[in-house]
């Protein structure tokens, strides 16, 4: 669904497998609701052991996590640590938990080699806490693989925040 043309421009292609979209949408809506309801332990089980959760810097959306500064580059260990502290109350920025509401749209899915499903989707997350409400718009670039309790598991999530800068949001203390 996505490649790079010779001119260096991101190539946008139509969805390869509209028939996959229903399953993928159900999965994305399910995990979004788990996040909104703070059932993060159930949500964590949706990830593969070799997963990667990435959020690039706002001024380098196409960055490489081995070379460029990112906002988040969690492997499974770090993601599970992040989740544990969000549940045990020591992630002070989310203690008490914010109220969030996620909209997941514009879902496209295609199958790449080895049964891996490549997904593009848009998100808009509203976060309300402490007398303020912030919006986090962006897009997901994900790789899903079959398996797990929900039928699919997350191998890779790259959440690209569609903001020039994290102002006034100031932080990403929830999961995108």
């Amino acid at each position: 669904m996505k490649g790079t043309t010779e001119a260096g421009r991101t190539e946008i292609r139509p969805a390869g497998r509209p028939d996959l979209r229903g399953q993928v949408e159900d999965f994305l809506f399910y995990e979004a609701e788990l996040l909104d309801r703070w059932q993060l332990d159930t949500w964590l089980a949706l990830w593969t052991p070799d997963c990667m959760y990435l959020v690039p810097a706002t001024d380098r959306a196409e960055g490489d996590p081995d070379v460029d500064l990112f906002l988040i580059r969690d492997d499974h260990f770090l993601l599970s640590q992040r989740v544990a502290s969000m549940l045990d109350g020591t992630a002070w920025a989310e203690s008490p938990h914010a109220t969030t509401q996620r909209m997941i749209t514009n879902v496209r899915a295609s199958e790449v080699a080895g049964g891996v499903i490549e997904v593009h989707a848009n998100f808009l997350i509203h976060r309300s806490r402490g007398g303020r409400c912030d919006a986090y718009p962006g897009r997901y670039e994900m790789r899903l693989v079959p398996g797990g309790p929900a039928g699919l598991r997350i191998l890779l999530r790259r959440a690209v925040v569609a903001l020039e800068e994290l102002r006034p949001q100031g932080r990403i203390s929830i999961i995108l």
Partner: protein
Amino acid sequence: MTESPYVIDDRETPRFRVRRSTMVASEILDEERRQIFDRSWLYVGHESEIPAPHDFRTRSVGGRPIILTRHTDGSVQVFINSCPHRGMQVESRPQGHGRFLKCFYHGWSFNTEGALVAIPDEASYGENFDRQNLGLVHPPHVASYRGFVFLCWSADVVDLETYLAGAADILDLFADQSETGMRVIGGTHLYAARANWKLLSENSYDGYHALTTHHRYLAMLKASGKDLQSVFRSSGGTPALGWDLGNGHAVIGGSDGSGGNNTGLGRDLSGPALVKQIARRDRFAELYGADWADRMFSGRNVVIFPNLALVDLIMGITIRTYYPVSPDYMEVSAWSLQPSDDEPELRQMRQENFLTFWGPAGLATPDDIEALERCQKGFAAHDQAPWSDISRGMVRSRPAFNDELQMRVFWREWDRRMTGTVHPLEGPALPRSGRLALPYVSANQ
């Protein structure tokens, strides 16, 4: 005891108190702009952000738009990003490359030295038109120290090295970490906090809050198999202390004498990475002496007055600067500084550890922001609860890294600038060592 309306510095009890109205009053912020931000050397950027001639960056420094660029001859240039014709911001992209900067409003063009080189229909201005004096305006002072570029918006200021005082040594400890030059990597943390800017100066070298505010980070370290005792235990060298560096600058740090065999607050290094790290440390010991190499590999948090923090927790270096937009809201920009000749194993370690701790989505910084924002909420009652306490360690002859000497140094300078009150030093400021740094090598030349 010395006191002003804002700071009570009581050496007998001892007790150091700061009035919370300084964090909420807009007239204080107006005065800070005049007395502090317009009269200090302010951080513009790092030379490695504009590696090639005609590369540019635009940003706001001290409330004014600037362009940081490199001229054809390799010289670093800083101009005000406002067309001398009618004032339009000439360049709006955050970064780019161009031999000429062209204002699209009426088509005036400037070179990377700021000179006006072309205007449409110049003849209409007559033969006495003086193009020479219509270049982009330079700030009154621009200077670099070891790749760190600063400006001052006032003509009346001491030169940069005099201003940096003992902090110049600390910048050396960052700049010396690569024989091929340090470099800022791509990507910026551009975030904000709904809190007064001075709270982030305090927080950037607050060694006292780590165990409580950053419990989740330390829990992660422990889960990774790290021996937490090793983080806070010195294996020799100089114990970690707070140091006054003069002119309101201060640092916390020491030298742990571990010979590079540590990652400070980072996760443990893999075997091959540890070998590389020790090899680097040995090389630097050869170049600079073992004491200096120990300090380089032992980490430090410095705040260069008023709003530049550099923190080296060994597993990555952050450069952070922040400006007030209003008394209760600041904008923060932060970068990652790395050796340009880093081995892949060590670069990987820095990439991973940096983000785990720092930045608006790390396992530490969001909780710092939360703390600062909740301080700001508490300050709403400043009339009824007027004082904050910054006394920790005043009873010690040598305050430790987790005392609050460094914040008192900040506030004494703040009070001197704002009210003219001179509070005596708690002890002698750490002078420049006079150690001769190796000739500066830019990472990109």
